[in-house]
């Protein structure tokens, strides 16, 4: 048995009296693409926020590749190889693709206390490469992200995660507010994760999207995991009946 890439043990979280996560145990193996479904308030977002370092659990443990980790900030999570792509898209529309790709992780020519001159040539060259790696073709790394379509933006976000050698990509409702065509593109990206050797967690309200792209379906309700089966062994109706 391989070491799980992520293991959550007895995670608990309260929000001012509301028990948002009740003893959640979840094991995710490397290379898996897991679809996480559930209604609003089921605890999906809370679980994801803990894994991406935005919130911290009140009790329980998160293990990454067998080692216990303490995720106190988004930066911590990224350092451990967990990168999250949000529905609102974690790209700044008023900045170029090259600058967006390296926000917070700019390559520096020289620096003092972590501040210094960016290596813009390298940023351009590497972003062209990273975007080509996800089969996305854009005219120039200097184009503003605001000029891209929603699907292209998610593509750039995924390219960014891959470029920084993330192990796990968490996609938090990446298909919200996208057209059908754009959604297909994003689902294509999710399917492509496996080929790149990445583990994916795909959160969505849309059962169709999850069933089209994931190996395994995990459903949450009222702060607990209520369902966990390989996609091949279940159906949309079975999951729907539970929620």
């Amino acid at each position, binding site marked *: 048995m391989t070491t799980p890439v992520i293991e959550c043990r007895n995670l608990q979280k309260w929000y001012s009296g509301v028990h948002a996560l009740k003893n959640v145990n979840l094991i995710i193996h490397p290379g898996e693409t897991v679809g996480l479904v559930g209604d609003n308030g089921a605890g999906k977002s809370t679980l994801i926020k803990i894994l991406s370092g935005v919130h911290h659990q009140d009790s329980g443990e998160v293990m990454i590749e067998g080692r216990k980790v303490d995720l106190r900030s988004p930066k911590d999570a990224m350092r451990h190889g967990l990168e999250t792509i949000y529905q609102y898209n974690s790209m*700044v*529309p*008023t900045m170029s693709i090259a*600058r967006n790709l390296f*926000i917070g992780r700019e390559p520096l020519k020289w620096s003092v206390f*972590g501040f210094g001159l960016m290596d*813009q040539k390298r940023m351009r060259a590497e972003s062209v490469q990273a975007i080509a790696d996800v089969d996305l073709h854009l005219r120039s790394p200097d184009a503003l992200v605001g*000029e891209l379509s929603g699907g292209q933006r998610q593509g750039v976000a995924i390219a960014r995660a891959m470029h920084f050698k993330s192990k796990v990509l968490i996609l938090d409702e990446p298909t919200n507010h996208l057209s059908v065509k754009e959604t297909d593109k994003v689902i294509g990206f999710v399917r492509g994760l496996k080929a790149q050797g990445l583990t994916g967690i795909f959160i969505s309200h849309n059962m169709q999207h999850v069933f089209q792209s994931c190996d395994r379906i995990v459903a949450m309700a009222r702060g607990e995991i209520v369902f966990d089966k390989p996609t091949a062994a279940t159906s949309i109706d079975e999951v729907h009946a539970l929620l």
Partner: protein
Amino acid sequence: MKRFLKIYLDKPELAGLALLIVLLAVFQVKSNGVLLSFENVRGVMGLLPEMALVAIGVTILMICGEFDLSVGSVFALMPMSMAVILNSGVPFTAAVLLGLAICAVIGFINGYVTLQFSIPSFITTLGMLFIARSLTIVISGGFPPLLPSDLPTWLFTDYIWQGALFRMSFVWFVGIAVLAAALLSLTNFGNWIRATGGFNEAAASMGIPVKRVKIVCFMLCSVLAGFAGLLQVLRLGSPLPSIGEGLELQAVAAAVIGGTALAGGIGTVFGAIIGTLLIRTIDNGLVLSRVDANWFKFAIGVLTMFAVIANAWMGKMSRKIKVEAHK
């Protein structure tokens, strides 16, 4: 040609530059050639650094997504506190540093209160506008203190050499402008400022310490305003408690005319300078053309509205060109 047009449309500060050239030509004719005469340019260039430094600070803060209305008051408070400190026997260098430290503290308070209590910086700094102005008058005791006559004005406000076009303040201004422009476009911190103002949530999710970035920008803005005030007082030779009134709005107007977006994320130091030059040119040009000086504010108002509408229109046209090129 289209490519050139798109680049042009994407840079609102270039439109400001074009307008500046037109205005210079018009006022040059209307003033019978006085506008661009050596003596007049010399006068205007003495004033320019003071307002431009404030506009640069305000622009950086606006790019970061925040706003500062207290710069006009800080502009007066810094030299006033320096004068009071000087009169208590502290040497000049220490007094200047203390004065700038006071500005940094004010900037910090602006930022801290805004972020800690999640209130709009418009409100926080409106409060600070009154607080800093009041402090200026209180510490002056109603009578502006006298400045010693042996201050090193050669370093700040004297002409670079006898009969030179520029004062030393212009050198400071150019140096600071180059540093500020480099900070914004070449350093990783500049990237963080743009990301924070462009889309706060995205910047935070990428691990940028958005609150700290904003506080640094607030402090930078206040310190630049204070330094600009110091330049003006050294030029005038007396710390009047009323200097800088209305400057905050002119600085915002300069930033906006230069293409800075009120919503944050967009703007350049060069744009702020162009905006300041436009305002100074209109001010000076109206006087030289013997127009009633009370029309000055009217003109600035029209220009501000016009600039924002033109920027929006140019952005739209720029996007259209891109779509056509794709077909």
